[in-house]
């Protein structure tokens, strides 16, 4: 459950972050303001708050819309974990927007012009030239984001999702071995974190092959 929430939130966050970063960089009117308001509001409030606001607020919204349109559909039928996905995707998206924005800006303009001069369209240029390099630049920050999100998933316990921490709590409350249970949970988180760090290091090594050497 922990891994699922982490993965979905990060993918969701990424899907939000790339367009948001683009909109901010290109200063698209209106959208750019929305994106920057989104980033500052989300980053300015705790992750637990996002979870509660979505968990308690979104059902009200869904039900009232459903009632207006006579969809015969109520929010009760939606599994709780979906609200967690939405809330954490929003959280991850805001942080990733800034990370990716910095990455995109680090790719020099000359390569974009070169891609255009070759005849590539702006979309092709972004996908094939800018984004891979932006992600390479952002790698370390993104990896911190992944780890942060992994640990952040413990908050899902507050809305009765049993992820690692929640499981530990449940086990402990049956046998009163709280300390042991939490140590076990902590070890699992640590293990996962080490794994993420290893993967990052491996990718970093690959990236360094093209970053190696001075820029002539």
């Amino acid at each position, binding site marked *: 459950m922990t891994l699922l929430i982490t993965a979905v939130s990060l993918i969701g966050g990424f899907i939000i972050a790339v367009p948001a970063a683009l909109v901010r960089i290109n200063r698209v009117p209106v959208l750019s303001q929305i994106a920057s308001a989104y980033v500052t509001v989300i980053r300015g409030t705790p992750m637990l708050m996002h979870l509660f606001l979505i968990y308690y607020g979104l059902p009200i919204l869904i039900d009232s819309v459903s009632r207006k349109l006579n969809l015969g559909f109520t929010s009760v039928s939606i599994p709780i974990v979906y609200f967690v996905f939405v809330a954490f995707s929003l959280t991850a998206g805001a942080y990733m927007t800034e990370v990716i924005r910095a990455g995109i800006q680090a790719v*020099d303009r*000359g*390569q974009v*012009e*070169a*891609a*255009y*001069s*070759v*005849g*590539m*369209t702006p979309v*092709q240029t972004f996908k*094939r*030239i800018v984004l*891979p*390099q932006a992600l*390479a630049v952002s790698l370390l920050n993104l990896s911190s984001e992944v780890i942060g999100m992994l640990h952040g998933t413990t908050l899902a316990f507050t809305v009765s999702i049993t992820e690692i921490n929640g499981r530990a709590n449940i086990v402990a409350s049956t046998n009163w071995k709280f300390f042991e249970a939490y140590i076990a949970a902590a070890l699992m988180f640590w293990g996962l974190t080490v794994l993420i760090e290893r993967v990052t290091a491996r990718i970093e090594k690959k*990236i360094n*092959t*093209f*970053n*190696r*050497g*001075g*820029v*002539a």
Partner: protein
Amino acid sequence: MIEIRNITKTFGRQEVLKGIDLTVEKGEVVVILGPSGSGKTTLLRCLNFLEKPDDGTVNISGEQVNCKRPTKQEIHSLRKKTAMVFQHYNLFKHKTVLENVMEGLIIVRKLDRVEARVKSIEVLEKVGLGDKLDMYPSQLSGGQQQRVGIARALALEPEVILFDEPTSALDPELVGEVLSVIRKIAAEGITMIVVTHEMGFARDVSNHVVFMDGGVIVEEGKPNEIFRSPKEERTKQFLKRITPELTYDI
């Protein structure tokens, strides 16, 4: 054939191009000379719309574009007919030498990978980099990087290759290897427009020399005419300052 009519371009209040007309025949090597700030690079960049001209028309082998209101398709098809070699090479840093050249062939020319590979290797061998295929740009010298830039442009088989000061960022020692590659492809009859400060190159390789200053073409003609007997006072001044050796050389 390339025909530029009445191109104007203003940056802020600075009028950089004040109505440029230029015709380039197929197979010609045109060199644009001029002091910095004369608008030569801007003119070159207007040809593939890296800068959008304010007014005028650009026609590259039948693709006529009105610069006032160009459509995205017009700009795109103009860019497909041209290729550019940049002062700072602008190679794709995350791609190998071979991938840099293959990129345009696969994505823009829609060749399959095998064809693109064969074609790219052929061109890279022509510029003398057949042994560097799997290197990344950061592992190459400036001269080698620029030759990759030339290969990337050449592989696309464009109607014209635009060279924007291709040797200005290079160590003097490395200028020679790049110029000799440009000479070689010039000899193959590829149309080129070259902005450069290399007078020797301009004199020996070009068919047509254009001298620009202050956003206008001051004088143009055969290299012999321009270098030996420039008509305009401004051209004389410029040539005297930039090529003192020419007065002895000729």
